[in-house]
């Protein structure tokens, strides 16, 4: 361990022992978190494009609309959930949040007949409060977010079911029969679709917007730098002055607002909301983020990857139906994908952690 350094020895400029090797382009590309997901997405697309039963429908516009209609709700959520995961936390209340947000809009619109935009805005405030509570609880108690948000999940689920049954004469579906003021515009913005025979949901555009905004936030802003640091090494981040707690709270508000957006789209589409809508979907969001290259332990990942992960889920669930396989196989398919994603992530993580010594 002894080093005797002759005093006055000149330090080598860019000498071999002080150099940082650069990886070859191919290796560097493979290290990008979303590349694995993109390859998997192409593979799955090809499976149903080759399968003789599903091929014709799969390659038509109707086939495209079919799986996009599945994928958008996973996509809009996978982006904030992926960001939160990169920031080192989970949100198990994200799925039920989509239903709760829609239920709240429905109850307000039905009970008071208010302008739909007011109902949407109040629901957004509610989402922000839920995200704030999740974030504050996780940051202040230092409990695992897994447990804290599991509690929120049960509270939201129980409250929305209970409230609906109490206020809605024991029906679990809130349907607003007379469209409140502003419905047409709100539907055109959120829940509507473009075209008729194959009707593309506007929600797909929201999915794209959310993905672009999320990517931009993560890679081009100071906040994105803090997200990586908060998940990668919170102590190091705090030592250099990164507000780790606030960063995480903002991320929790982000997932709750994602749930609000999905809820708004679903509510404005048919002016109805189901009390257990979205329950169980939180796991799909996590699968999408993991398949897309977000590390379960935080600090690494990609918004584009998470979005591609959501597309994969949509394709898998819909393709299985087109191919005429028993629909249960869709879940087996997702399980294999999840495993695949986790293995790729583990390899990536080791690559990135490996130090040259």
């Amino acid at each position, binding site marked *: 361990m002894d080093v005797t350094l002759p005093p006055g020895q000149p330090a080598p400029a860019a000498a071999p022992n002080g150099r940082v090797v650069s990886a070859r382009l191919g290796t560097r590309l493979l290290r990008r978190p979303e590349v694995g997901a993109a390859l998997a997405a192409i593979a799955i697309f090809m499976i149903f494009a080759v399968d003789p039963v599903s091929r014709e429908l799969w390659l038509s516009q109707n086939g495209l609309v079919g799986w996009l209609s599945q994928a958008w709700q996973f996509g809009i959520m996978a982006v904030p959930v992926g960001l939160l995961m990169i920031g080192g936390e989970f949100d198990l209340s994200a799925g039920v949040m989509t239903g709760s947000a829609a239920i709240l809009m429905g109850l307000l619109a039905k009970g008071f007949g208010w302008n739909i935009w007011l109902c949407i805005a109040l629901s957004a405030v509610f989402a922000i409060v839920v995200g704030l509570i999740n974030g504050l609880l996780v940051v202040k108690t230092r409990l695992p977010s897994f447990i804290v948000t599991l509690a929120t999940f049960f509270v939201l689920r129980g409250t929305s079911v209970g409230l609906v049954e109490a206020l809605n004469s024991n029906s679990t579906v809130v349907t607003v029969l007379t469209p409140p003021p502003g419905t047409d515009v709100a539907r055109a913005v959120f829940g509507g679709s473009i075209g008729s025979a194959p009707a593309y949901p506007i929600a797909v555009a929201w999915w794209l917007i959310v993905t672009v905004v999320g990517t931009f936030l993560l890679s*081009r802003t*100071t906040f994105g730098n803090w997200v990586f640091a908060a998940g990668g*090494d919170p102590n190091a981040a705090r030592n250099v002055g990164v507000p780790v707690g606030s960063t995480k709270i903002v991320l929790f508000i982000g997932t709750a607002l994602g749930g609000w957006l999905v809820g708004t789209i679903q509510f404005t589409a048919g002016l109805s909301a189901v009390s257990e809508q979205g329950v169980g979907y939180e796991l799909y969001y996590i699968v999408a983020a993991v398949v897309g290259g977000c590390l379960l332990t935080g600090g690494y990942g990609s918004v584009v990857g998470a979005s591609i992960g959501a597309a994969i889920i949509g394709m898998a669930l819909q393709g299985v139906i087109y191919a005429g396989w028993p629909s249960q196989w869709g879940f087996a398919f997702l399980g294999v994908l999840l495993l695949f994603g986790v293995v790729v992530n583990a390899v990536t993580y080791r690559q990135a952690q*490996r130090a040259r010594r």
Partner: protein
Amino acid sequence: MTEITPAPTPALDTTARPALLEARHVSKYFGSVIALKDVSLQVRAGEVTCVLGDNGAGKSSLIKILSGVFPPDEGEILVDGESTTFAGPREARAQGIATVFQDLATVPMMSIWRNFFLGQEPTRRVGPINLLDLDRAKATMKAEMAKMGIDVSDPNQNVGTLSGGERQAVAISRAVYFGARVLILDEPTSALGVRQSGIVLRYVIQARDMGRGVILITHNPHHAYPVGDQFVLLKLGHVLGSFTKDEISITDLTQMMAGGEELAQLSHELRRMGADQPALQQVARELAEEAARTAPGNSEA
């Protein structure tokens, strides 16, 4: 070169310019435990002061006092010759005193440039929003790392793929870039191999030659001696000795650190324990030789 404001010459200072950072008769107690007692040291611009001591010598308490984590119970801290009380680490940093902790310096999964600017990101205003100035960040990082003798060809490379020494370099050049006049390096070589330690010691020299003061905390006299101008030896919270380079040789420094007597004692015990084990006997012989070499007056072999 760092600008130094003229100030009354402190009593301990033998030259005209005041020390950048000085601890004067500092003591720290935790309940009845004496963590530090009457410790004095100073670092001037363009000099390296080494703090040597084994585990439990009080090195980490000293670091925490110097970096503003907690104040001393007795004695005072002087910055540019003026008595100062830090309210916290942030204030110490604002005065140009940067501490590079061994483990907590960087986030491994993040790229070099993201790490370099973490917490102090350069931004560029585009319309109503502040964007990260990627080009400026990468170019600045490359230029700063080049000053340390490292050529970064890919700024997007993860810090985790760097060697331990290179990671230290990122942390050190970051501290220098963000205005550190005094660098406190906490055991920068303790987890590193021989070659990597040599590289880190070169960065210490680079920082010194840029006119920064460096406080190098280590338990290895062989790392301290080649780069140090002053040496402060700590043992159980007390100053065992304080020397300039021409007052002490590497042999004496090593002996004071390890203690030739302790080596001889260890050799004796090993020999007794492993009378039937050739390997232990061999270790014991080598220890005895080491003790004899470092402590000529205390030969046992």
